[in-house]
């Protein structure tokens, strides 16, 4: 499988399972759609989030070692760094016998959420830009 697809799949699963950590899929009826009941299962989507995080980390380290940081782009690397760091702290917090202060917990959660939203927005902007560029090339021909 192409390396870019590993990244895309990991990010898509992370996005869905990440949003599922908030109580929205049940409230907005998504979980009532046949086949999507799992979106309201917090423990299942939490495990899914961990599996996708493992996939992302595998891809990230592989890509960094093979192609270097420049291949990823500074902005994406910074956002992924914030996401991975805050995610790692959250994962540590979930282990038995590991506790952080309420303020740390809150700041880490908010930063994780903000980094995820920024990556999502950046991906949408990039997608729109690529489409606009492609349309321009077609028009020039």
């Amino acid at each position: 499988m192409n390396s870019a697809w590993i990244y895309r799949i990991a990010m898509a699963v992370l996005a869905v399972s990440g949003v599922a950590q908030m109580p929205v899929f049940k409230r907005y009826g998504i979980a009532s759609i046949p086949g999507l009941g799992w979106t309201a299962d917090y423990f299942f989507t939490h495990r899914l989030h961990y599996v996708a995080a493992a996939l992302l980390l595998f891809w990230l380290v592989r890509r960094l070692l093979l192609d270097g940081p420049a291949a990823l782009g500074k902005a994406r690397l910074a956002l992924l760094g914030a996401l991975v760091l805050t995610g790692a702290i959250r994962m540590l917090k979930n282990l038995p016998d590991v506790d952080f202060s309420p303020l740390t917990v809150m700041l880490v959660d908010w930063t994780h959420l903000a980094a995820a939203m920024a990556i999502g927005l950046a991906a949408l902007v990039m997608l729109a830009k690529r489409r606009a560029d492609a349309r321009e090339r077609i028009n020039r021909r």
Partner: protein
Amino acid sequence: MLKHISPDSRITRRTLLKTLGLGGTAALFPGRARAAALPASGGETATLLDLSKCIGCGACVEACRETNGKRYPKPIKPLPTLLPPGTKNEDFSDKRGDDTRLTPYNWLTIQSATVDGQEVHIPRRCMHCQNPPCANLCPWGAASKRESGTVEIDPDICLGGSKCRDVCPWQIPQRQSGVGLYLHILPTMAGNGVMFKCDRCQDRVAKGQLPACVEACPQSVQSVGPRDELAAQARRMASERGGYLYGLEDNGGTNTIYYSPVPFEKLNAAVAKGPGKPHLASVADSMADSNTLAWAVLLAPLAGAASALLKGTKKILASKETKEGSHE
């Protein structure tokens, strides 16, 4: 105050302060100066409830309500209309006097049952899990567990999504709509109030006092102290008196341990259960699977590095072979 701690307990106010690591805080209060000199143990504090002593008088419930009444929600009415249609507000403000179940206005309730001819009363509140799913899985950082073992929800931050109640094996936290941060963000579209539950009287403990329910009990039902010591005490009680324990292993271990003269399976079958009336069934560790997967996350970067190394080695070998081929 010490007279309120179980007479056969090795736990004293000094030990309590020590285990809560509040020596520094206690130093701020002249009357607590002795406690300030104690070293912090760093362990979790638990409570052990001897149900053979509980007479169901309700003094603990009354003390809890009196002490925490100032922190009860004061909803702004009318409550917001929620989207999508069908989403319901939860309003207990007209049922403030209800102490028959857990509500945002009642953080401790007593369940009663007669089992094997014995009447047993069970004070119920947050179990303060050692690895609490409510605090681990709150997506907004409103719930957390302190080093002391107390699990708390910040009412200024909570959005009232009630995920903590959904993932709590006992569905302890209770929601009141019309209060909290969500009113200032998108009240119709996201959030639905604030979740409330016992926080073991954090404000009282910070002043060097015991939780109100512990102090008010005329039967000294509750002992407070380091978890490992109380767990050992509970096991001794069960073995010497032939009783049963709950909370030692449930949900990975809780900082609330019950000792009962009758089996908990029978108590669970006999008590009234439902919203605000928690069960007493055995509970597996909710976080166990996620924490096993944490190893996969930890090892993933190493797998990524190994994969890169393998690809790099293959490239080098391939280029060597090409060079050798061109020489021939």
